[in-house]
């Protein structure tokens, strides 16, 4: 992996270690065993006869499992190369490490094998912000186990460490003395169990005594892959990217505590293994043609936690869909608002969009019935709580000024909403894509009201509101002399006039008047926004443009996948295919795993996509981007009980077949053939990729 760290995970439990498998975390260092946003191990160091080990290789067997091949000693000369050390580690309720040492010598060998273990029980927020702990630590040796504990009032966390081979356990770790015969081996299992303890429980054996079985998880992954459609095509890189996306999406599945065993997509590893309104919804949308399970769980879980009261600390309102849920110490003591935090202006309308799209794919009207109350509450939020300026548009301004989010749209960094001259807009801010989402939500809810909830009056009212919103929006946000939509309206109702990728989301939502769509598409594929790989978040030439600025010039794969979908919606097939081709070609440089964002440099300048330095990979909506682009290229659209296929492949792809697409039609296949364009032999494939015959 690019940062030299090895990451494995299961739900919100994950391990980040160095390439030897060791963990030596400081307060600000992101390595460790984490679960429920708490670090349960900050030290886990293996030595053999007092020496650290050197990695020969690391196998990422599965997302939940890694194998480290090591030899004793450090440096380039292996003094003890007659020994092999293998650590095989699988995550699940903590982790299990199978430690195996092989003696290749003709003589027996006496070994002292030592694991040093410790935990700082840091909250993820503390790791990010380097905060000090307020509770007390305990370390106990009981029944041959090492139990590390942390307590602050009623908040108790514990790590229970044990081994299957006889060990001498002290408060700093476990020691094994062994003699290995010639060509013999020695092994032990090391079990690390994380425990979240309630008030009544003591620091005794935690509830879950045993890490979850690896076999179990292997079967689960196999089932997941078997149920997904099969991709056939003449572009090897696309097949690899597709498979990578499916596996990463499986890895990012997360069963929120308090949501049974169902899973939804968490936002990203390692910092964002939790439920996010926006990320979980958008990823579920991207994945719908492949699996509907994620969408169903997302809708249910977000509905369960829908806001019901006015709470300024959490930026909660009735009907509002949450932004982020966290389980660590700081939210537990209300020092951070994430229990859950509601400061998102787009998750609520997007919730309705997902509900409708889910029904269109699955025909599952029962869920739409079940969530009627939540959907109506969400629609009510748009009208009654989100219109902070009283001008009929969704806008945002945090009420929690200490720890709330300033920008409550997807471009959530501090400098993302600026005028052309670089000044930042004041609050509240009404960004344009929020209005698009609101429009789409009303149109889609009208369909559900008419067809499922049997409330034609409500449907008509929603359609009337949507038509009015569309008319006003096309008047108030349109910058006539530049022929694009403003990024936002500021607190005075003035246009925030930069050219940004947000206009692509407007096409997706359908709020753009037909007469204006062509100009929007022209900008999206024009030289200021389109880098050759994809659409930049902010156009070249704007005051704050920076090709490696987080939301002010980089290219986001997820952003592009929705832009491509939007272009198709307005009939710009070729333009959509160009974006798909650019992003999918970029994916090849990252072994099929698209980063959250990459540099906005001109493609011809760098020749390869420059990754934005970020700690999160895989990122859920980047993982979902190739899936949505594939849908877009094939032109998959559920219409009634049928799946309509209208392929428009990028130049350079001969054929694409997606087999066994699940939906209300059962399973169907979709085929696409490339356009013949002998004069345009511009290769899609990077030059190192063999062109299939």
């Amino acid at each position, binding site marked *: 992996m690019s940062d030299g760290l090895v990451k494995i995970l299961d739900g919100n439990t994950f391990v980040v270690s160095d390439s030897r498998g060791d963990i030596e975390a400081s307060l600000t260092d992101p390595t460790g065993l984490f679960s429920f946003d708490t670090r349960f191990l900050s030290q886990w160091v293996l030595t053999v006869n007092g020496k650290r080990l050197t990695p020969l290789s690391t196998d990422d067997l599965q997302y939940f499992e890694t194998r480290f091949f090591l030899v004793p000693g450090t440096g380039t000369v292996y003094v003890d190369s007659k020994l092999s050390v293998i650590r095989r580690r699988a995550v699940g309720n903590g982790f299990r490490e199978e430690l195996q040492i092989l003696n290749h010598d003709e003589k027996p060998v006496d070994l002292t094998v030592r694991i040093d273990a410790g935990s700082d029980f840091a909250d993820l927020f503390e790791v990010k912000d380097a905060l000090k702990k307020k509770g007390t630590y305990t370390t106990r040796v009981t029944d041959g186990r090492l139990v590390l504990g942390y307590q602050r*009032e009623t908040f108790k966390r514990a790590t229970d460490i044990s081994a299957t081979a006889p060990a001498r356990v002290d408060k700093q770790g476990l020691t094994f003395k062994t003699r290995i015969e010639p060509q013999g081996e020695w092994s032990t299992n090391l079990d690390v169990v994380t425990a979240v303890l309630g008030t009544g429980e003591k620091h005794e054996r935690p509830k879950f005594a045993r890490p979850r079985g690896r076999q179990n998880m292997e079967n689960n992954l196999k089932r997941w892959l078997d149920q997904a459609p099969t991709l056939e095509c003449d572009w090897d890189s696309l097949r690899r990217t597709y498979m990578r996306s499916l596996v990463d999406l499986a890895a990012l599945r997360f069963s929120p505590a308090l949501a049974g065993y169902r899973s939804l997509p968490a936002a990203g590893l390692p910092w964002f293994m939790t439920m996010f309104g926006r990320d979980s919804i958008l990823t579920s949308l991207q994945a719908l043609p492949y699996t509907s399970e994620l969408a169903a769980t997302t809708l249910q879980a977000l509905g369960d936690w829908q806001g019901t009261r006015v709470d300024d600390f959490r930026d909660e309102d009735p009907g509002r869909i949450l932004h982020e849920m966290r389980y660590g110490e700081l939210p537990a003591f209300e020092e951070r608002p994430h229990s859950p935090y509601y400061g998102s202006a787009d998750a609520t309308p997007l919730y309705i969009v997902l509900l409708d799209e889910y029904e269109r794919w699955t025909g599952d009207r029962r869920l739409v019935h079940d969530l009627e*109350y939540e959907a109506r509450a969400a629609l009510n939020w748009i009208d009654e709580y989100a219109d902070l300026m009283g001008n009929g548009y969704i806008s945002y301004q945090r009420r929690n000024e200490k720890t709330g989010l300033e920008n409550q749209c997807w471009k959530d960094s501090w400098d993302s909403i600026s005028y052309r001259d670089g000044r930042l807009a004041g609050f509240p801010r009404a960004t344009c894509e929020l209005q698009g989402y609101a429009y789409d939500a009303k149109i889609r809810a009208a369909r559900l009201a008419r067809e499922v909830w049997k409330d034609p009056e409500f449907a008509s009212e929603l359609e009337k509101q949507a038509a009015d919103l569309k008319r006003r929006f096309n008047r108030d946000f349109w910058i006539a002399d530049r022929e694009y939509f403003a990024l936002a309206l500021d607190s005075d109702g003035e246009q925030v006039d930069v050219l940004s990728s947000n206009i692509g989301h407007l096409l997706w939502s359908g709020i753009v008047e037909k007469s204006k769509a062509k100009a929007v598409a022209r900008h999206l594929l024009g030289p200021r926004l389109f880098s050759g790989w994809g659409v930049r978040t902010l156009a070249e030439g704007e005051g704050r443009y920076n090709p490696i600025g987080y939301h002010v010039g980089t290219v986001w794969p997820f952003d592009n996948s929705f832009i491509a979908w939007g272009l198709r919606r307005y009939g710009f097939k070729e333009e959509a295919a160009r974006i798909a081709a650019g992003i999918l070609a970029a994916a090849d440089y990252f072994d099929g795993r698209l980063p959250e964002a990459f540099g906005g440099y001109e493609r011809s300048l760098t020749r390869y996509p420059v990754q934005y330095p970020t700690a999160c990979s895989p990122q859920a909506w980047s993982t979902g981007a190739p899936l949505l682009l594939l849908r877009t290229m094939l032109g998959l659209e559920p219409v009634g009980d049928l799946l309509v296929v209208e392929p428009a492949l990028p130049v350079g792809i001969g054929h694409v077949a997606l087999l066994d697409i699940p939906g209300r039609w059962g399973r169907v296949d979709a085929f696409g053939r490339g356009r013949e364009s002998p004069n345009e032999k511009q290769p899609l494939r990077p030059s190192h990729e063999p062109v299939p015959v």
Partner: protein
Amino acid sequence: MSDATAEFFGSLTQRGHVPMLEKAKGTVRFELVDGKRTDRWLLVVDKGDLAVSRRNAGADCTLRTDKALFDRIVDGEVNAAAAVLRGAVTIDGDMELLVQLQKLFPGPPPRRRRSRNGAGGRRRA
């Protein structure tokens, strides 16, 4: 002295039907520890219909905490989900029922909320 907990359960009896709980079905027992005494309340939720009693019966989910803390939860001064996260409230049984139930707790009292800093403009239903 007024009893916030008793008032809360009284108000639930009056509400009778709560549309946002129409998906919830089950029985929740509250064990509120008050010194040596334990106050018991039983809430039966049946597709949005609420029934409160003091019966000591089996339940799908048991919530246990100090009565003083529960008084503050039903006053909106303490967030129930955060209290569960820090172990000040323990839950035994059906966690999903608890997620539904926390919707019944009010937000912070207005006096504790900061002013809206001139953002204004919010219309209320």
